């Protein structure tokens, strides 16, 4: 299991770079994970990350696109604009949560 230093904090990740221990996550780690994806976090990004966080704590699963649309009120277009080429995977990784397991 790789360990790396992000924003001055050692974090454990799986082979694809998802955190394995969310207690090692904080907002600076999120910014560093986002930077790895070439993303600078804005309020728009945080709205998505905060929803994923709240939803994961409630249901123990990363929300799919439709749930982000309907429950999170975040349109598909916005998600692709904020996290290009793989919005949910990227947002889940930056949020410190596991790789999404849903097909939709």
């Amino acid at each position, binding site marked *: 299991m790789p360990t790396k230093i992000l924003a001055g904090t050692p974090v454990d990740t799986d082979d694809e770079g998802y955190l394995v221990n969310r207690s090692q996550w904080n907002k600076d780690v999120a910014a560093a994970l986002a930077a790895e994806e070439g993303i600078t976090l804005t309020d728009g990004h945080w709205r998505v990350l905060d929803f994923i966080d709240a939803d994961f704590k409630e249901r123990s699963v990363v929300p*799919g*696109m*439709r*749930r982000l*649309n309907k429950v999170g009120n975040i*349109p*598909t*277009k916005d998600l*692709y604009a904020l996290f*290009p*080429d*793989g*919005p*949910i*995977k990227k947002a889940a990784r930056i949020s410190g949560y596991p790789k999404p397991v*849903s*097909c*939709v």
Partner: protein
Amino acid sequence: MSDKIKKVSIIVSKGSLDGIYPGLIMGNGARMEGIEANLFFTFFGLYAILKKYMGSIKIATVGNPAMRVPDAKGFPLPTILGALPGMSAFATHMMNKEMEALDIPPIPEFIEMIHDAGGKIYACKATVDMFHLNLADFCPQMDKVLTVGEFYEISAGGQIIFT
């Protein structure tokens, strides 16, 4: 990861619920992985993008030997019973309920999701002519009516999947 798939063109040729969803799931899934996706609707598959019909696509309960009731591990549905009026609507209703629970969108919403995700929605020219359709018959997400030649041009350098 140099062998990562970069582009897929998915042909949807069947107009039943089980004929349409696999193509939509693969197309949407491609966009979620950052893969360029072109969806090409042809023959009865075209009903998935016809404004008036896309919301009422049904499962075929006749000619489907894998069909079981009341669920996937139930009893085989004999063809003669599958032909009873309302059987297709009933099976469709049951499956829609399962999909709703999994957050798989209904077809019109799914087409919009794929379109908003940057996936392209194309209609087959030969079918449009054969069925006497015009642009007003299509959902607003339909990007363009393509000839087969144009489809191959757009698909160049990617994978083509026929469903």
